């Protein structure tokens, strides 16, 4: 890779702070200016320029978009976006992290209230809600990354916010729909990260499962005269032998499932059909970010359980689940490494879990800009339709 290519790559990374449509029109021009400013020897953007792009990019995003009230009505109440903000909404719906943006705000608000109300009343927050609140972001990121296109929601959003409405002037900004490729995560990257996550979880939670002092239990109490049975929820000593039995079952079942998945992969992977509506994507930065966000949270939860501050027994069960799934993930990673390079994570999932050959991917809706029509001449006034998604 030449110095110029390295510089361009660095500049394009920081340029992501700008809206997609801004980058499409001005991105190359701005990179040219950045190159001129940096000089011919530069291989990457300086810190000052990077921070400047970050600040200006976000300012442009804010300036370009609708006012806060319209944004909140669109995001939380699903109010149709006014036509002049359709370009902004198209970037939002077609952009990365659409599901995260769509799903994140409501749970953060709900759990934030559960967390904040006790604090404001001078009491300690329930650790369970704090933990749930902290888990929202990484879990939603994973959810978003592993299923890059969620058709029902996306198609509905396209129809509701981007399509022309009855009685709307034909000169307004218009979008249409066409067919496009469905993004799928590469199998090699996906299985490698799955092995890393499951391996980390197995080591962490197995260690905690061996030292957890107490677990939740139903505790009997002295019966009152008029009731036959009396019990309450409390805690009781936890014996690591119980975890050992659970882990042994998980390992045996996991190995058997992995063996079956390996046989299925050897038999069915070669039967995968040609995929005209598929685009293999590498979501490494996002997946690694989500993984890195989960690690301290998992460590925190493990520490709370190991020190007896939180009596929940999540660790033994999480450990068993990791031990159950790890052999299968290793088999899938091996198949991905030695198999065809165009294998997607979903192919191995379908083969390993369902025992069927990979399915033919269907197309996804792609939004295209339509030419605005002049009422006087009846002729398109734009350059013509362009695929922009």
């Amino acid at each position, binding site marked *: 890779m030449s110095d110029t290519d390295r510089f361009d790559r660095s500049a394009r990374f920081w340029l992501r702070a700008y809206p997609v449509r801004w980058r499409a029109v*001005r991105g*190359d*021009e*701005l*990179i*040219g*200016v*950045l*190159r*001129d*400013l940096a000089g011919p020897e530069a291989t990457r953007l300086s810190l*000052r*320029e990077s921070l*400047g*792009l*970050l*600040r*200006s*990019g976000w*300012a*442009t995003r804010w*300036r370009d978009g609708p006012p806060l009230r319209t944004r909140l009505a669109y995001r939380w109440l699903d109010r149709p976006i006014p036509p002049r903000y359709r370009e902004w909404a198209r970037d939002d719906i077609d952009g990365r992290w659409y599901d995260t943006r769509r799903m994140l705000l409501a749970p953060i608000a709900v759990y934030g209230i559960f967390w904040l109300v006790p604090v404001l009343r001078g009491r300690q927050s329930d650790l369970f809600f704090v933990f749930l609140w902290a888990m929202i972001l990484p879990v939603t990121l994973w959810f978003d990354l592993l299923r890059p296109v969620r058709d029902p929601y996306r198609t509905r959003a396209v129809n509701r916010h981007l399509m022309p409405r009855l009685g709307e002037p034909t000169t307004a900004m218009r979008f249409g729909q066409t067919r496009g490729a469905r993004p799928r995560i590469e199998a090699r990257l996906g299985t490698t990260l799955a092995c890393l996550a499951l391996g980390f979880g197995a080591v962490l939670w197995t260690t905690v499962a061996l030292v957890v002092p107490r677990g939740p239990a139903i505790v009997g109490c002295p019966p009152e005269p008029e009731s036959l049975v009396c019990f309450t929820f409390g805690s009781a000593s936890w014996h690591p032998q119980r975890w050992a039995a659970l882990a042994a079952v998980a390992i045996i079942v996991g190995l058997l499932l992995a063996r079956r998945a390996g046989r299925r992969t050897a038999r069915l992977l070669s039967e995968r059909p040609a995929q005209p509506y598929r685009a293999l994507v590498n979501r490494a930065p996002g997946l690694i970010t989500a993984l890195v966000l989960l690690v301290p949270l998992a460590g925190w939860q493990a520490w709370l359980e190991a020190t007896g501050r939180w009596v929940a027994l999540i660790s033994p069960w999480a450990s068993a689940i990791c031990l159950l799934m790890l052999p299968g993930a290793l088999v899938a990673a091996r198949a991905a490494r030695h198999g065809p390079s165009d294998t997607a994570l979903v192919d191995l999932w379908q083969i390993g879990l369902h025992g069927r050959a990979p399915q033919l991917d269907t197309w996804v809706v792609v939004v295209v800009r339509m030419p605005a029509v002049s009422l006087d001449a009846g002729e398109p006034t734009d350059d013509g339709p362009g695929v922009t998604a």
Partner: protein
Amino acid sequence: MALSEQTYLVLLALADEPRHGYGVVQEVRTLSDDRVKLGAGTLYGILDRLVAAGQAEVSNEVVVEGRLRRYYRLTPGGRAVVEAHTAELAALARRARRVLARPAFGGV
């Protein structure tokens, strides 16, 4: 639109001839006696606002050594703004000179 010093300098840089982004940065450095060094992010933020306000516009696009260069120029509205602001600054400078020319009488 209230004019910041950077915005005024960008308007001034476009006053005599159309310039591309890097040309504007260089001209701003010259006009400010090497004091104001615009970053690319700041420059394009200002250009976006000027274009949206109808004070500047794209005049031409050329490709030089594989790089797209887009030239910007002032609109008549932009020229009026920069002339009005220059007149305000000149009037302020005249008043400042008068104040400074008065003899200073002691302190409080």
